[in-house]
């Protein structure tokens, strides 16, 4: 019996496959969405709690501008609740990759870190000083990998090795950091202020004994899950205690640092004085050198003058002497000429004498000859008769010859005397000449002697002159060299002194700055409870957001699903009436008949419930979580089936399936068997209310009237379809609207309202005079269109007992409108900033319930002043109050100091803007720059998770809408098979049959869609509210385009269903359907 029963059930399931599947699907879908959306929030909470516990995350972090000492650490240890105090170091540095300079934060860890451990995702833990751990974001987004060697730079003038022992590190592990779940590492003074990642280094790498940060572990840490409100409550009291310690310790630290710094400044001042002294000394030295040179130059001058005077005199003397010599020489030469002439004459005379002597000798010889001849002749004569003629002749001749000889002899003797005289005269002259020669020789000798003397003297003199000249030249050269050295030195001095001076000026400015800073430093402790941790807060907020989403969307969804399943089951049982009747007639007990349907629906319900819960708890939750995970660095989701959720889902499912089956079966069974045997009479026709208004009714075409009447004939279908379609349209509409609205916020807030491109943070708060220079410098940059200066800070505002922490912005009334649009959201009329009061943002006005003209209290609590609201301005992110400087001074009672410069740039792209930012940052007075573009992108990114929910909603709503339409249509066709067969017999073409049915669907869709709009507006409000965080204003604006789109989407589903249903219509067998009733 029982097996037969079960068999029959399975046969039934098999027979009604599509219906069973669609029933399971509906249940699945409803449960899936419900459990998915409701489970993700607790899952996330659990995951985060477990994560924070596993890695032993500290409860409190303390930061202080001045850092901490071991004494501070010891002081904290005194607190009872504190179980562990972990001092650590934080240092921001620059990591460069592919030309991109990325500011990263380095944190210290010890080898056996117990608190704030990191999760090693890949690689291993740090072991050596030259190793580092790198956060997953740097790996995933910047492409670093394990084994890479990285180099850190300080990013400013500081020497990085002063802080870190090593500068190059090998990446040994990829980590996830429980203390930075938001992936937001804080801001830095480096580059454009945005930290892009996080490194962990061994604590011994840090060269300092001043801790940057202290982490505190308390005794509640392991007892209470950290996301609980109780945790925050308890932790708050501990935070208070730490703060109290901070007050005293902070002061001490401040004094120490102040004194130290003061000394440093003093030292620096002394150094400057030293430097200045040195400069003065070198100047003096130079002066002395100069004087010496001058003296030298003077001496050289005098020397030269003396020299030239002496030279002239000496020259004259020499010249005289030389002239004398010359004269002597001339005389000597003359005398020599005379002597020579005389000698020559003498020599000529001598020669003449010689010639005369020779002539004499010749004459003598001839005479001798003559004599001889005579003698000869005489002899001859002798021999000769003396009277011979010959003798006579010869005698005559001898006579003659004798005569001749005699005359010659006479002549000769005369000549001999003459010769002797001449000789004698020559001898005498010679003697005289020789004397003259001797005299000349003497003269010459003397001349030579004199000349030699002169030459010697001259040489000597020349030597002396040369010597003098040389020495003069030497001195000249020395002077020149001296001068050269002097000028080099002077130049050097001038250069150096300029350098030194500018250095001194710099140092002085530095000292000035240091003094300024010193006057501003505070040892104040910034005690951050974990509940104030940026990522932690964001995560908690998101949890709540998802939670609310889970309450709005899926309930709606589930209701529709339940309705659909009820309809399906009702239809199924009604169809089975004859079977039921037969069984009843055959004597089956009521319970066994009911049981059949109970089993059928239970199988469907359990299958759907199981599928839905599993998919919902393990897939949907993960999809949602992954969406949120974009924003976080968080561990994998710990997925668990949410029991409460399962119970609620199970109840709704069973009520809408099993219970529904029981009730309907009982209802059927209560009819008389005979009645049951006949098919359920088709629903009677009825006039509908519309027909009463003839005016409208008559205007419809006949077939349209038929459709309208049919729609109202099947009330359940009408109801179901409208709810289903309306629900889906509403969900799709609200999803799209939310997306629309969120998209708009980003563009509106950062495009229209905050229209400036750059927010430049000043290093400290300064008055206009101080910032003027920097401002002008920025304004002069070509890429900068305009710039203004503002003060932006937070304070409190109060009205009607509601107190809010807000941002206020003090700007110049004439300039501010170029940077921030103050305008009415609806009319877009701009609002003027004036001294009569303050302008506040819209959401703030709504929260405080104030309007223009009202007065609110503003200022730090305890010192609040009443101000009039002069305008309410459009704003979407954060609560803002705008005011003029004079209003500011009125409220805060102090002179206005500015901390920001806002700039508009000339249509730059992101790269250019970043370059510009780096350029502007070179100014010492500027500490950081945030680009509105980047802020905007970050904001949009942060909303991506919201988008996933929206898309998930739209997707599921679409699916549901599809199933609703499909089911209803399928039921509709089944119920009206006879009617449809009839019109087919009447000769309606297939398309006419389709339109006969689908005209109704279209009308239903239109009605459903319109209801959906109204519903959508109602759902939208709460969804928007849940999307809104404290600081976001999501304006609920009716958007017809969005509505049209969501309507169109539903319509498309209708059309698709129709297409599928067409096949079913075609299949309707006229003969079969019209055969006599069963």
């Amino acid at each position, binding site marked *: 019996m029982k097996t037969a029963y079960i068999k029959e059930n399975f046969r039934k399931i098999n027979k009604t496959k599509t219906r069973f599947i669609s029933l399971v699907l509906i249940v699945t879908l409803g449960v899936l969405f419900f459990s998915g959306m409701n489970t993700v929030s607790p899952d996330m909470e659990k995951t985060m709690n477990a994560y924070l516990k596993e890695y032993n995350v500290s409860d409190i972090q303390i930061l202080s501008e001045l850092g901490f000492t071991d004494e501070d650490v010891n002081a904290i240890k005194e607190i009872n609740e504190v179980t562990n105090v972990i001092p650590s170091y934080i240092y921001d540095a620059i990591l460069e990759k592919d030309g991109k300079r990325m500011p990263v934060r380095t944190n210290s860890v010890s080898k056996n870190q117990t608190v704030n451990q990191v999760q090693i995702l890949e690689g291993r833990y740090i072991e050596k000083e030259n190793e580092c751990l790198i956060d997953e974001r740097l790996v995933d987004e910047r492409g670093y990998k394990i084994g890479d060697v990285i180099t850190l730079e300080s990013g400013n003038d500081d020497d990085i090795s002063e802080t870190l022992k090593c500068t190059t590190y090998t990446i040994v592990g990829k980590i996830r950091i429980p203390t930075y779940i938001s992936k937001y590492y804080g801001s830095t003074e480096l580059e454009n202020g945005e930290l892009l990642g996080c490194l962990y280094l061994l604590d011994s790498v840090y060269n300092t004994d001043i801790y940057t940060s202290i982490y505190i572990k308390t005794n509640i840490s392991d007892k209470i899950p950290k996301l609980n409100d109780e945790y925050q409550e308890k932790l708050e009291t501990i935070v208070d205690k730490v703060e109290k310690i901070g007050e005293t310790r902070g002061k001490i630290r401040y004094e120490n640092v102040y004194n130290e710094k003061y000394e440093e400044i003093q030292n620096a001042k002394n150094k400057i004085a030293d430097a200045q002294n040195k400069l003065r000394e070198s100047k003096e030295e130079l002066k002395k050198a100069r004087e010496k040179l001058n003296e030298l130059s003077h001496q050289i001058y005098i020397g030269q003058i003396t020299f030239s005077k002496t030279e002239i005199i000496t020259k004259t003397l020499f010249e005289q002497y030389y002239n004398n010599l010359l004269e002597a020489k001339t005389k000597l030469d003359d005398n020599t000429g005379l002597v020579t002439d005389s000698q020559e004459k003498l020599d000529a005379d001598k020669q003449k004498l010689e010639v005369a002597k020779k002539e004499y000798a010749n004459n003598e010889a001839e005479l001798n000859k003559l004599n001889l001849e005579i003698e000869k002749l005489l002899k001859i004569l002798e021999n000769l008769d003396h009277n011979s003629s010959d003798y006579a002749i010869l005698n005559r001749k001898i006579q003659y010859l004798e005569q001749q000889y005699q005359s010659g002899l006479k002549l000769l003797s005369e000549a001999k005397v003459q010769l002797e005289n001449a000789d004698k005269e020559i001898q005498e002259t010679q003697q005289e000449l020789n004397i003259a020669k001797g005299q000349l020789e003497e003269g010459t000798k003397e001349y030579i002697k004199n000349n030699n003397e002169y030459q010697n003297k001259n040489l000597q003199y020349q030597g002396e002159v040369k010597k003098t000249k040389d020495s003069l030249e030497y001195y000249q050269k020395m002077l020149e060299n001296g001068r050269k050295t002097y000028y080099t030195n002077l130049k050097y001095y001038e250069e150096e002194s300029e350098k030194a001076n500018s250095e001194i000026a710099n140092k002085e400015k530095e000292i000035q700055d240091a003094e300024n800073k010193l006057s501003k430093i505070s040892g104040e402790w910034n005690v951050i409870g974990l509940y104030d941790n940026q990522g932690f807060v964001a995560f908690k907020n998101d949890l709540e957001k998802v939670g609310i989403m889970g309450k709005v969307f899926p309930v709606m969804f589930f209701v529709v699903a339940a309705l659909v399943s009820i309809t399906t089951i009702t239809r199924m049982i009604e169809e089975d009436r004859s079977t039921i009747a037969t069984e009843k007639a055959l004597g089956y007990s009521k319970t066994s008949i009911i049981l059949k349907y109970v089993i059928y629906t239970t199988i469907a319900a359990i299958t759907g419930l199981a599928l839905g819960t599993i998919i919902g708890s393990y897939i949907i939750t993960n999809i949602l979580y992954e969406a949120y995970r974009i924003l976080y660095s968080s561990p994998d989701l710990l997925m668990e089936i949410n029991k409460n959720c399962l119970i609620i889902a199970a109840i709704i499912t069973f009520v809408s399936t099993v219970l529904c089956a029981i009730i309907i079966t009982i209802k059927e069974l209560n009819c008389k068997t005979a009645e049951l045997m006949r098919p359920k009479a088709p629903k009677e026709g009825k006039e509908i209310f519309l027909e009463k208004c003839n005016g409208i009714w008559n205007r419809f075409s006949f077939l349209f009237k038929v459709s309208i009447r049919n729609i109202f004939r099947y009330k359940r279908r009408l109801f179901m379809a409208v709810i289903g379609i309306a629900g889906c349209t509403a969900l799709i509409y609200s999803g799209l609207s939310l997306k629309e609205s969120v998209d708009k916020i980003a563009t509106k807030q950062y495009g229209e309202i905050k229209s400036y491109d750059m927010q430049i943070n000043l290093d400290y708060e300064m008055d206009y005079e101080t910032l003027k220079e920097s401002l002008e410098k920025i304004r002069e940059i070509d890429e900068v269109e305009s710039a203004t200066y503002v003060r932006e800070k937070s304070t409190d505002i109060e009205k009607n007992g509601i107190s809010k922490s807000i941002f206020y912005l003090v700007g110049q009334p004439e300039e501010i409108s170029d940077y921030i649009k103050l305008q009415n959201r609806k009319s877009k009329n701009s609002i003027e900033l004036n001294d009569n009061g303050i302008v506040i943002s819209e959401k703030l006005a709504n929260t405080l319930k104030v309007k223009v003209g009202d007065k609110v209290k503003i200022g730090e609590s305890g010192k609040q002043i009443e101000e009039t609201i002069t305008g309410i301005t459009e704003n979407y992110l954060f609560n803002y109050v705008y005011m003029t400087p004079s209003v500011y001074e009125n409220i805060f009672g102090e002179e206005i100091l500015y901390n920001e410069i806002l700039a508009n740039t000339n249509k730059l792209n992101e790269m250019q803007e970043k370059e510009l930012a780096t350029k502007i940052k070179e100014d010492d007075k500027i500490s950081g720059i945030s680009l509105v573009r980047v802020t905007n992108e970050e904001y949009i990114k942060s909303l991506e998770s919201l988008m996933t929910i929206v898309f998930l909603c739209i997707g599921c709503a679409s699916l549901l809408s599809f199933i609703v339409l499909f089911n209803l249509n399928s039921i509709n066709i089944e119920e009206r098979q006879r009617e449809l067969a009839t019109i087919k*017999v009447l000769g309606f*073409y297939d398309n006419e049959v389709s339109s006969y049915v689908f005209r109704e669907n279209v009308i239903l869709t239109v009605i459903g869609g319109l209801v959906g709009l109204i519903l959508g507006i109602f759902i939208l409000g709460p969804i928007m509210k849940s999307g809104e965080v404290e600081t976001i204003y999501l304006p609920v604006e009716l958007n017809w385009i969005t509505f049209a789109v969501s309507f169109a989407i539903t319509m498309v589903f209708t059309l698709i269903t129709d297409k599928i249903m067409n096949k079913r219509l075609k299949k309707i067998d006229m003969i079969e359907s019209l055969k006599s009733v069963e």
Partner: protein
Amino acid sequence: MSYIEFKNVVKEYTVGENKIKALDGANFEIEKGELVVIVGPSGAGKTTALNILGGMDSPTSGEVIIDGKHVENYSERELTYYRREDIGFVFQFYNLIQNLTAVENVELATQICKNPLNPKKVIEKVGLKNRQLNFPSQLSGGEQQRVAIARAIAKNPKILLCDEPTGALDYNTGKQILKLLQDTCRKENMTVIIITHNSAIAPMADKVIHFKNGKSENIIINKEPQSIDEIEW
């Protein structure tokens, strides 16, 4: 050639492994304007023949010629067109659209024809002028059948096919219906074919076709058909 020719029509149904011949070579001819009554035992194939004649079904083999056209070769769409323009159907269980009033049921049929009759006049003709705004559920069986007939004739068809139109009605009401059909045939010169289990009414017809085992066994032509008023049973 006759107006309607049914030649060797075979209709086979396959149920599981078995082949059932609902029509096994049926042959008959009907002239235009004739009132034909088809009788025969249950399962003889009357309804099958009528369905084929009415274009709701196609024969397995054989020829069905109506007004010279081979209906057996018609496509689905042609068959629909044929049903729409040439055929009026009256069923045993009326098959009215529950959600439409009497006159609207008639109107629905006329919506799609080329030369429909005025629905109101037709309703008047079937004697339901006073009940024309009633919904089927508010009408008696006879009245409903009259609406069904009105719906069939309002299309101004060439052939009116009635499958046991009086099957669910009492004697008098049945008679009224048959009267209506006879009148329609005579006055509008419409070809009317009536299936009935009541062979007593056979005399009212011009032609009586006897069906048996899927065959038209016996075709009797009444030279002088009687008015239904004259027939008692």
